[in-house]
């Protein structure tokens, strides 16, 4: 040990949590769908693996696909386009968790803001123009804001079409709630 090493922080050599915290599980109707989805995703370069399901979500089909959870939106879109959408997508570490379903609404007079989880979408009530998008931490958030802000709610691309991550997915929920509230 060098002299300077004495002053270095004492950091743990082993990490406390399993590195599966950023992984998710996709559940399908049957094994042939699992195989089709696996083939498709591997062809597209995704880091996935087929495995047995955890006990909490065992429902007949004896195989599931583990995938990078953060990129849930992009993977879901890929599988939907191919006609093999999963029945369920859940976090590996806690398969009973559900996506947020609570919305927080703030009325600023001329403007309305809807928040879903960490994402906020604000529109001008009269013109329905998206004036701001805030919150979030995944790199598609600045991109989504760039593509959506300044456009009318009905003409802006939906987050599910151009987003890729769970933040994009949360913004999709806020977007849908905003459309529901602003529809005649």
């Amino acid at each position: 040990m060098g002299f300077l090493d004495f002053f270095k922080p004492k950091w743990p050599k082993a990490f406390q949590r399993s590195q599966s915290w950023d992984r998710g599980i996709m559940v399908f109707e049957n094994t042939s769908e699992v195989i089709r989805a696996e083939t498709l995703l591997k062809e597209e370069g995704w880091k996935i693996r087929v495995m047995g399901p955890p006990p909490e979500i065992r429902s007949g089909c004896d195989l599931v696909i583990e995938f990078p959870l953060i990129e849930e939106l992009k993977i879901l879109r890929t599988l939907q386009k191919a006609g093999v959408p999963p029945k369920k997508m859940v976090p590996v570490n806690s398969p009973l968790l559900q996506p947020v379903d609570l919305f927080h609404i703030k009325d600023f007079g001329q403007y309305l803001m809807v928040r879903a989880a960490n994402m906020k979408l604000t529109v001008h009530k009269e013109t329905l123009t998206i004036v701001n998008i805030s919150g979030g931490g995944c790199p598609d958030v600045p991109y989504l804001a760039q593509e959506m802000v300044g456009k009318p709610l009905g003409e802006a691309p939906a987050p599910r079409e151009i987003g890729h991550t769970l933040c994009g997915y949360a913004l999709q929920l806020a977007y849908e709630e905003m459309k529901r509230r602003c529809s005649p």
Partner: protein
Amino acid sequence: MLAIVGTVPHKHFPLIGGKVILEDNDICIQGKRVSVNRGTPALLAAAIKTGEALGQPPPFGYLVGDIGLGHGSRYLYEYLTHHLGESGFHTITFHYLQPDVDWHNRVLFAIEEMARRPILIADAGFMYAAKMSGQAQLYDLFTPDAGELAFMADETAPHPFYTRGFILHDENQVPDLIARAYNYNNAPRYLLVKGKRDYVANQQGILATIDRPMEETLEAIGGTGDTLTGIVTALIEAGMEIKKSAIMAACVNRLAGYYAKPSPATQVREIIRHIPEALEEILEKREEIHKQNAVQ
């Protein structure tokens, strides 16, 4: 020296490391320009403005293009694992990166190789990865909003999208969520929680609250959290103690917002412009503000 690590929302923006300056509404790095709107460019712009006012040199930026596919982020993570260990940064702020626990841990191992441990600040995607990895307590400061704080307080949630309903916040619950985040070791040495009321906290509890001036519309404006992180980063790099930096940054960010006379449609660059005058005013009133906000 200060390093700021993050992404820009352009798919083909290359990985660049270098000094970052501000020209008009763009940040400039190695001959490339990026418009300041929100995200890491807004954080950089706020840090530059604050640093300039304090006589500090421009920050060093590590930037790469990423629109959410994660390719740019992973390229940057890998680059950091090869270069951070030999660097001598005093402060490193990590920002919009695709959350990835494995790469996050490798970056921490690279930092462990540095001769002196830097002050570590995280926000946005890198903060999510830090929480997911179970290593939040190795950081010096996180700057979550109330929704992100709820995610940190939920020991099972891998992302804010999966925060359980009973934890999902109401602003009144922020002190409870702070306590819960510390109980589960999901918080760093200090927390600066941004919102209608800003909170500065540590393991012992809430150290200060800042709620003036009150501009509720700031919550809707994308990038106001990024500017807060940029300001506090620059204050810490300038040598101010973390708790004092967090309190002052909250005051400066709120005051800059107030000077911009914001509506929910205001864009963050209009607020960044007012950071120098807000900082000057807060520096003049520093002692008075500390007395007002200190928890008895």
